[in-house]
């Protein structure tokens, strides 16, 4: 019943400096610290100045305290740490509003976080050749209920109860960039309450 094979899941590759850019905006979440640290070192090697780099980072518990400290002192012209994605995203949007052409975006973190960053980037018409993204951390999904349109966060199971309308949803592989979420479709419409086994699949 899990509908597989709809390959709209985005594909990400390891981060590397884009020397064509003039301003480099690095955005990360939790374990994303590791690829971003590597990227900053590569930037220095490639001659990208520290002043041209700006870092936004969510100190999520998926990374250690030591990692958080490392990011606080990261090798970038400006560093901003955030408690959660929501506050990072709002600052990110403010920065993009004031940014000019020549900016490159680098994103590292779990897929659900990246989807939210990409959705804002798309609003500013940042294209594929201006964004690099590396997925790391939890494969938990953000699920969009196609019935009530609410988003359920951090879903690790094949079937989940919608946070808002409480319907039981099967999590599909169909990903929407616009919604930054996977589609969740009611599963027990025929016989209410009759559910297949619930399994941890996105871990």
């Amino acid at each position, binding site marked *: 019943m899990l509908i597989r094979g709809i390959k709209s899941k985005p594909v990400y590759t390891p981060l590397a400096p884009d020397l*064509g850019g003039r301003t480099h905006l690095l955005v990360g979440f939790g374990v994303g610290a590791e690829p971003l640290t590597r990227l900053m070192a590569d930037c220095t090697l490639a001659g990208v100045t520290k002043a041209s780099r700006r870092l936004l980072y969510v100190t999520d518990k998926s990374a250690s305290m030591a990692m958080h400290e490392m990011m606080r002192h990261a090798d970038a012209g400006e560093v901003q740490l955030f408690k959660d994605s929501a506050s990072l995203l709002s600052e990110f949007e403010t920065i993009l509003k004031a940014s*000019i*052409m*020549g900016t*490159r975006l680098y994103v590292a973190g779990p897929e659900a976080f990246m989807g939210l960053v990409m959705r804002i980037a798309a609003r*500013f*018409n940042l294209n*594929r050749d201006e964004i690099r993204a590396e997925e790391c951390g939890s494969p938990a999904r953000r699920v969009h209920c196609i019935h009530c349109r609410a988003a359920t966060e951090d879903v690790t199971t094949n079937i989940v109860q919608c946070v808002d309308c409480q319907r039981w949803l099967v999590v599909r592989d169909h990903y929407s960039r616009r919604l930054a979420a996977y589609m969740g479709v009611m599963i027990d419409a025929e016989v209410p309450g009759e559910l297949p086994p619930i399994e941890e699949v996105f871990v």
Partner: protein
Amino acid sequence: MSHSHTFAVTVTAITQVTPLIKHFVLKAADGAQMPSFSGGSHVVVVMKGATRVYRNPYSLLSSPNDLSAYEIAVRRADQSRGGSVFMHDHVTVGMTLQIAHPVNLFQLDKLALKHVLFAGGVGITAIAAQLEDLKMGAVPYELHYSVRAPDHAAFADRLLARHGDRVRIYHDSAEHRIDIEGLVAAQPLGTHVYVCGPTPMIGRVLASARAAGWAESHIHWEQFSAPPVGDPFDVFLKKSNVKVSVLPDQSLLEAIEDAGVDAPYLCRGGVCGECKCRVLEVDGVLVHNDHYLSPEEKASGTLIMPCVSRAHGKNLVLDL
């Protein structure tokens, strides 16, 4: 696309806009509406001269919202192989011409948040219809148009009347040049740049945008090269099994067409890639004049763009 896809149009008006530029209004010969198009499109005009057929691409500069007629502007190029001279000297009001359906190789980006356009001289013809599309939308745009005063005053006045302060006219002189570097250096995210004009202008816009860190997906340009005149040479078309002689003032594509072989094309200016053809044998050198093939492909000697490129030497065999 080939000449079998053309349709007949009647020339309904001709205006001499500048000493070198003539403006033509074309209507469908059967009185029907013209096919719809988007800003930045061009048509290939087929001209039957006394001794040969010319096929030249011209940008549509009329509004995409008015399909009662197409308008094109032709700059007379005495050095060229005769297409523009034919349009200037032999085309009269009431005459019928064949044109191909419009093709757009210079499209506006639909997701752009701002458009900055640069035009120089007759390059404005590729941009004029784009401005009409932009006028209908809500996305900000600005045109920086460089003219050799007072040559193109006619176009400039028309643009100023339609677009007001979104258009800035520069008289191309040392004191009054477009500050291209300054303009591309500080554009908001999501801006797209477009340029059509003389080669040095296109070069400056591309170089400035890249220097300011613009990604390629935001940079758009159109530059049709006219096929240059060259030495005559022979070519053998293997699949069609015909031998063709290419005259000095004829392009390889035109010679192939004259021999009755249907070869693909869209732009006839070395940019779209549609006419790309495999070279099976060559004894001599290929003279590449296109903007399409990579330097490696050109050096390989295995590909040629017949719309603008030629060969030097005894033997050339193409996979056509």
